[in-house]
């Protein structure tokens, strides 16, 4: 009993069903039981959130690292400095517009035109941002601002699954999880960009591993997980048809936005009509 230090006995010690607490041999510990348990609780919670965030972000990682790599390579070929390449990935963080931009820079297009093109290409994120607003309704302004920075097609797709889970994400843990997913996504993109610009010479065969199918596969899975009634199925097929038709007719910047606006309007009207 020499190494046994008296500790405060917490009543919850006796409730072994409580999360985070388990039966502990007093003699194993020579720190305050409360402190060590608190620490274990914190570690348990943080690890859970981190693991969950990684699980959900993993398809994004599969997509972003190779595509970021491709971007890094192209950017070097276009003549951008490594700093500019990385800065774009850090502060713009929008794959398609980054690809388009590095194509436009060497072609002698004016900076203003490049900025306007970027604006139009990324405008669909405004729709996604609006669509996510019910989910982050209860967050404070700073958290919303931080969250909004990393709204991309892929992070949006993952977050929009939350509609089916809860009405409003009030829980602090889920909030941290969502912000973590965003962070992991951006880190993957930045990592891919860095790998691309520093190792561009060793262009690995992305296609051999099916990595170019990662993002389409993710979209397929997300669509299937989200639809739960016939109306949505009909609408999504319609949206796909409209978008593809527009693209074939040459409307390549607006096809997604127009298809979405048309189908969302039809959907909302049908729902209202049904409810009458």
């Amino acid at each position, binding site marked *: 009993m020499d190494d046994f230090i008296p500790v405060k006995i917490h009543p919850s010690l006796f409730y072994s069903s409580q999360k985070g607490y388990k039966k502990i041999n007093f003699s194993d510990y020579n720190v305050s039981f409360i402190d060590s348990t608190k620490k274990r609780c914190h570690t348990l919670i943080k690890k859970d959130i981190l693991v969950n965030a990684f699980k959900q972000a993993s398809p994004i990682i599969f997509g972003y690292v190779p595509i970021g790599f491709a971007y890094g390579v192209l950017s070097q070929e276009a003549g951008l400095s490594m700093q500019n390449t990385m800065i774009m990935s850090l*502060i713009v963080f929008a794959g398609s517009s980054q690809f388009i931009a590095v194509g436009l820079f060497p072609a002698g297009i004016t900076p203003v035109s*490049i900025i306007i093109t970027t*604006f139009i290409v990324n405008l669909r994120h405004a729709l996604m941002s*609006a669509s996510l607003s019910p989910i982050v309704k209860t967050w404070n302004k700073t958290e919303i601002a931080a969250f909004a920075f990393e709204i991309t097609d892929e992070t949006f797709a993952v977050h929009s699954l939350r509609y089916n889970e809860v009405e409003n994400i009030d829980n602090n843990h889920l909030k941290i999880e969502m912000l973590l997913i965003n962070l992991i996504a951006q880190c993957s993109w930045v990592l891919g960009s860095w790998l691309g610009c520093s190792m561009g010479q060793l262009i690995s065969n992305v296609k051999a591993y099916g990595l170019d*199918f990662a993002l389409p596969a993710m979209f397929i899975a997300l669509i*299937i997980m989200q639809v739960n009634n016939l109306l949505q199925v009909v609408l*999504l097929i319609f949206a*796909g048809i409209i978008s593809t038709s527009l693209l074939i007719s040459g409307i390549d910047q607006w096809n997604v936005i127009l298809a979405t606006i048309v189908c969302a309007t039809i959907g909302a009207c049908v729902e209202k009509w049904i409810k009458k």
Partner: protein
Amino acid sequence: MDQKIIFLTIIGMALVTYIPRLLPVMWLSSRDIPSFIVSWLRFVPTSVLAAMLFPSLFMVDNKIDITFNNNLFFWVSIPTALIAWKTKSLFGSVLAGMLFIAIIRFLVI
């Protein structure tokens, strides 16, 4: 090409990218939105995803082409969709899809 000009352009790009992302969610979160709009917004995810997905599945080189030789994505999307439906797992479906593509490309080559 002047890297300084590129840098300034990038700053401009960042602004026109961030502001459309920030304003909608910022404005709409602090107001009560009529239920029609909420319902409208709920259809946005599936529509957007489908609008982005279908072109990449059906089109190759700016034309619709779903022959097996030219467009593997379209055909692999069918088993991938089935797996997604059965397992409801994001990671699993993506992995399965990538595996199908890798295996078929390996076998065909």
